[in-house]
């Protein structure tokens, strides 16, 4: 029997705004399968986003959904989670939203290790505003604001998250659709701040400027560059050139923020 | 007392002058049952630089919270004395540290001076209580709050372990000012 996505989708809110060939819908379906596998209650789950194409995802989900200001998802979500630690809090957004304007909130959410899951759909571009380069756009790539090629080096989101203190970091791609739900489910189950980067595509504003002739070509690129962490262990540096590791990249146990704050409450009340 | 009495504690940032002002105001408003407002002004630096703490004491409501014509001024440093003595009224009380303020401002004031900082350092044993020595002296010289209330206010503001130290500082300041006043 086919999986019933409708039970997590808000009635009447589809079709979505995403372009044909965009991978965001694949990620949303992965999120739904992950939530279903964990039996997550919709009314006890908050999905929080910033601004951008990926940030429209919460509107389609039949949960407590918060579509905030550009880059601010992690900060809004921190308020929700801290005020109500028993809620599941999931953040979704794109690479520009999360690592440029939202970079500060992102690294501090990682540092606090607050128990939330952040799904970053990295399509290397600001799609909604028409294809300007983001901090994740590869050097040399064309964007509407890099007509002569991008001079900037890009961020490695996973390394950024690990460096900032996130205790669970994974990476998947929109091509490897069946892996997405497993990575997200493991991230949600992890106690602490978890980051799942999904390499995605934007045929409309990135593909056509960078000589990808079709969505299939973009998807094939994702297939080709991805190397599972296990497989990478057996590969040489030469073989790994130009590849991107996928799977669970980092997983450690550290005190979680809301639990730490619960101890503050205990200490304050004991001293009263 | 009748009407408004305006006191300014001045010195260098870090000398505890704000606290001295707060204690004086608490003595009036919490323990003596009259009105008081305390305010302060300081530069961006929390330590060093001239700093002032102002206390207005009155038997009626206090509208303007700042000094208009200063009735009593404490100056622990030369810089503070130069900067904050301009509006001390004729016949006003001026208390200065005799080791640190060598140029007195021109004017007709009731000047009292003794080695405030060194009293704290050498006779009480801790320089950190300079503000409480100065407070004891200001209580003696102004007479606008009772000695008992001021002592109570001091003790309510200091940690248990430092009560004796502060009691001694307050008492020495009070006595030395009375003696120096002549």
């Amino acid at each position, binding site marked *: 029997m086919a999986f019933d996505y409708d039970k997590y989708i808000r009635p009447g809110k589809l079709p979505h705004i995403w372009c044909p060939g965009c991978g965001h819908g694949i990620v949303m379906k992965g999120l739904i399968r992950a939530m279903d596998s964990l039996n997550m209650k919709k009314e006890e789950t908050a999905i929080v986003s910033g601004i951008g194409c990926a940030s429209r995802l919460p509107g389609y989900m039949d949960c407590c959904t918060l579509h905030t200001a550009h880059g601010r998802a992690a900060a809004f979500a921190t*308020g929700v989670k801290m005020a109500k630690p028993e809620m599941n809090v999931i953040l979704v957004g794109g690479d520009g939203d999360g690592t440029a304007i939202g970079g500060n909130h992102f690294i501090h959410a990682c540092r606090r290790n607050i128990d939330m899951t952040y799904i970053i759909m990295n399509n290397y571009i600001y799609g909604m505003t028409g294809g300007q380069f983001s901090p994740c756009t590869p050097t040399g790539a064309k964007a509407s604001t890099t007509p002569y090629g991008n001079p900037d080096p890009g961020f490695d989101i996973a390394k950024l998250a690990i460096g900032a203190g996130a205790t669970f970091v994974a990476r998947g791609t929109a091509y490897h659709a069946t892996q997405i739900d497993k990575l997200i489910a493991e991230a949600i189950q992890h106690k602490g701040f978890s980051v799942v980067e999904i390499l995605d595509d934007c045929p409309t504003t990135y593909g056509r400027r960078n000589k990808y002739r079709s969505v299939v070509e973009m998807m094939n690129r994702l297939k080709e560059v991805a190397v599972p962490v296990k497989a990478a262990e057996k590969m040489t540096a030469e073989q790994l050139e130009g590849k991107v590791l996928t799977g669970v990249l980092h997983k450690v146990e550290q005190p979680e923020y809301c639990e730490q704050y619960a101890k503050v409450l205990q200490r304050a009340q004991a001293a009263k | 007392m009748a009407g408004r009495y305006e006191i300014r504690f001045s010195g260098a940032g870090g000398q505890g002058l704000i606290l001295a002002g707060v204690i004086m105001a608490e003595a009036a408003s919490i323990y003596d049952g009259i009105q008081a407002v305390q305010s302060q002004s300081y530069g961006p630096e929390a330590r060093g630089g001239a700093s002032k703490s102002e206390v207005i004491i009155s038997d009626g409501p206090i509208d303007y919270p700042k000094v208009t014509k200063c009735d009593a001024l404490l100056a622990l440093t030369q810089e503070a004395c130069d900067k904050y003595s301009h509006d001390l009224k004729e016949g006003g009380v001026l208390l200065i540290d005799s080791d640190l303020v060598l140029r007195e401002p021109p004017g007709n004031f009731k000047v009292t001076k003794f080695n405030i900082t060194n009293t704290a350092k050498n006779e009480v044993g801790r320089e950190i209580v300079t503000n409480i020595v100065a407070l004891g002296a200001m209580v003696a010289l102004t007479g606008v709050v009772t000695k008992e209330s001021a002592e109570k206010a001091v003790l309510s503001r200091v940690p248990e372990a430092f009560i004796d130290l502060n009691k001694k500082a307050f008492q020495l300041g009070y006595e030395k000012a009375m003696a120096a006043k002549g």
Partner: protein
Amino acid sequence: MAKKVAFLQGNEAAAHGALYAGCKFFAGYPITPSTEVAEVMSAELPKVGGKFIQMEDEIGAMAALIGASLTGLKVLTSTSGPGLSLKQENIGYACITEVPCVIVNVMRGGPSTGMPTGPSQSDVMCAKWGTHGDHAAICLVPASVQELFEETVRAFNIAEKYRMPVMVMPDEIVGHMRERIVFPEPGEIEVIERTGPSVPPEQYKPYDTSYGDVPPLAAFGSGYKFHVTGLNKMQDGFPTTKAEIVQAEEERQVRKVEANKADIMKWEEYLCDDAEVIVVAFGSTSRSARFAVDEARKNGIKAGLFRLITFWPFPEERLLELSKQVKGFITPEMNLGMCTGVVKGCIEGNAPVLGIFRVDGEPVNPGQILDKMKEVK
């Protein structure tokens, strides 16, 4: 039993007012001269089961505040000029999404870093026009430590009652000065709670105007699922660009304050009945003004004080009435004419408005006001 009395700083009183009102969440970022508010909240909130978080920046603090409010908590942040500029993005978000929150902004010199420890009253326009787009604004400007406590309680009441951000703006002098405060007993000052939904979750709409201009607000995690967005939205909370809906919603969000001005506005008239010259002032400047008015009366000048307690909404109608009886208004303020301009704008040229402006980090003193009274002929 005698009431609890303390000698407190204004900022500390604001924090205690918030606690009295039932505040259970604070998010902030350190900034002079407001930090004492955060310090008291960090110590006191955990004792009553509340939460305190110091965020990575002012923007994040405002964001976390709104997130926490959406779970049903009463929330507070505190800041000062440069922080207020940063918070404006999400203050706008709280306006359009209609999420209650209270912002204590202690006014210091500006623009930019300005004079961090110097007093000012130059953020009152920022309270109304700081965030982009049309929206209502409520700004309270208390003048004493006791009033800062009480107006903070009232700010929470207004925020919850009208589902919107409310600003409390003491100037640095009021924020930092210490006075005796008498703590009201629980129940002595009214505390208003948020109106939650009266329908089951499947029928709930977060902007259901069948309840009037202020729709009930459910809490995340209480069984109600709904969508919140900074886009223009429909009654069910989902985005729309339909002209008639956007127009009606924008108008409603301004109307909910305009139509309830009488409930929100507060001012004090002192010796205004027969006054020929009225000083319009707020915050610490109103204390100088009252001192000056008393002095003037002793000298036979018929002076009065019109003390603003809300700056927004501004009591335009009452000042227009008074303008018909006076020879002139005097508007002392620690800025370059913000209140003066508003007074001029509402009195239809009936009387001259003479401003006294100080932006040098010093308060307007009573002598300056007395001197200005001589210019009113």
